[in-house]
């Protein structure tokens, strides 16, 4: 919050340089840092400031008037939360799917999503109230498995760290999360490609540089796709 406030104060300054504040979901840190660099290289004088946090936090801050130019959310529900603060209809710029994650070496020999319905396997998933949990519930329903988690985490990061540190035998996270974390591996997951999570992006009405904001959104939807692909996100055809 403090970062966002401090970052948003210096927009078009007297020396012709300008600052673009992008609120982006925590799962986008790596691809967006690549996009930040290449966008700045393509737009001399523009300083892109990335503020990463959970989409719900970011959406709440935008509603409370945080000075952001662009919002990239991890799911469409959180984008819907900001409603009229979006300057144009949000566009989907990336997709993500779920996978079973296990500690490296797979100590509990988890072979399929059936294992997450086995009480002898310590599993953790996201709570149904958060986006990754809603997707997990859909996936379990498709696979016909009743999940018996030891914990329903409030974020995908919580699931990932409990698996990575070996406190849980298995969990459900996004494909891109597995690549970001050492000490874990993915297990092939049936029906995962049927539960697709879409990431929407929109320029915000609060921006006092609407052209630059719209330009950044456009950039993510075109040139930026390569960086998203490199980090395991599903890309969109334009």
């Amino acid at each position, binding site marked *: 919050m403090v970062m966002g406030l401090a970052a948003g104060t210096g927009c078009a300054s007297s020396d012709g340089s300008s600052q673009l504040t992008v609120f982006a979901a925590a799962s986008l840190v790596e691809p967006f840092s690549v996009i930040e660099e290449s966008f700045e290289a393509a737009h001399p004088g523009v300083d892109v400031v990335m503020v990463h946090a959970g989409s719900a936090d970011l959406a709440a801050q935008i509603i409370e008037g945080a000075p952001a130019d662009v919002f990239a959310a991890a799911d469409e529900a959180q984008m819907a939360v900001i409603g009229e603060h979006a300057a144009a209809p949000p566009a989907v710029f990336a997709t993500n799917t779920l996978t079973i994650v296990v500690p490296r070496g797979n100590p509990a020999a988890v072979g399929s999503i059936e294992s997450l319905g086995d009480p002898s396997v310590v599993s953790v998933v996201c709570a149904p109230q958060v986006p990754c949990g809603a997707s997990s519930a859909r996936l379990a329903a498709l696979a016909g498995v009743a999940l018996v988690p030891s914990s329903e985490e409030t974020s995908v990061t919580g699931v990932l760290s409990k698996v990575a540190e070996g*406190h849980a035998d298995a969990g459900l996270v996004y494909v891109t999360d597995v690549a970001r974390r050492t000490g874990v591996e993915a297990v092939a997951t049936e029906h995962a490609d049927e539960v697709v999570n879409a990431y929407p992006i929109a320029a915000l009405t609060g921006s006092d540089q609407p052209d630059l904001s719209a330009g950044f959104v456009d950039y993510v939807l075109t040139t930026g796709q390569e960086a998203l692909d490199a980090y395991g996100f599903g890309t969109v055809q334009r």
Partner: protein
Amino acid sequence: MTVAMMPRWMMPLAVAAGALVALPLAATALRIDWSRLPELAASPSALDALGLSLRTAAVATALCVALGVPLGFALATWRSRAKPAVRALVLAPLVLPPVVGGLALLYAFGRRGLVGASLHAAGVELAFTTVAVVLAQTFVALPFMVLAVESAVSARGGHHEALAATLGASRSVTLWRVTVPALRPALITGTVLAFARALGEFGATLTFAGSLPGVTRTLPLEIYLQREADADAAVALAAVLVVVAVTVVALAYRPVVRRAS
């Protein structure tokens, strides 16, 4: 008992301090959707979480009294050059970000932890259980008790105790008949602070104990989760938590206030 005189210049600062705390609380109260409050606060998930919070915080507070009071005494009466270092160590949970506290508990009591690995081998699992919630709460709340007792014991001379000893009282009798009554305000302060801290505990619980309805999902965890889906519900539950905490504090502090007046 005479009350200390307060210089007039302190008054605006005291008012500012009060406002700093009261303003955010008042702002929160204004956001509450009062028409939905009874329904939100009495939902099964909220009642589950509140019940779990009260039970775990009560046990954690009892542990803080049982363990923190002796440690406070030990620190106050111990004469050693290592004392500042030991005190700093004991107070570390006050400074540690709670999430790091949770990680530390996992490193100690988790399945692959220092102690936890042996417990796991013996078939005892702490992580993801209600016991883990109590451990996390005790870990973060204990310093309040230790600090309250240590400073109160240090501030007292051993005069009355020495007198009791000359009259033939044993150390334990002196403790119960002389020291504990004299320390009563500090014990109450420590207990209230420890309970409040345990009740509000969030980060260490989430990291160490996880979040499962009825087992490890205390009210602060339920509030955090609700906020993702329904901010109004989160604010309503937070109001419940504040009311419970304020009620407990008011009840516990009452006897001391009466004595002082």
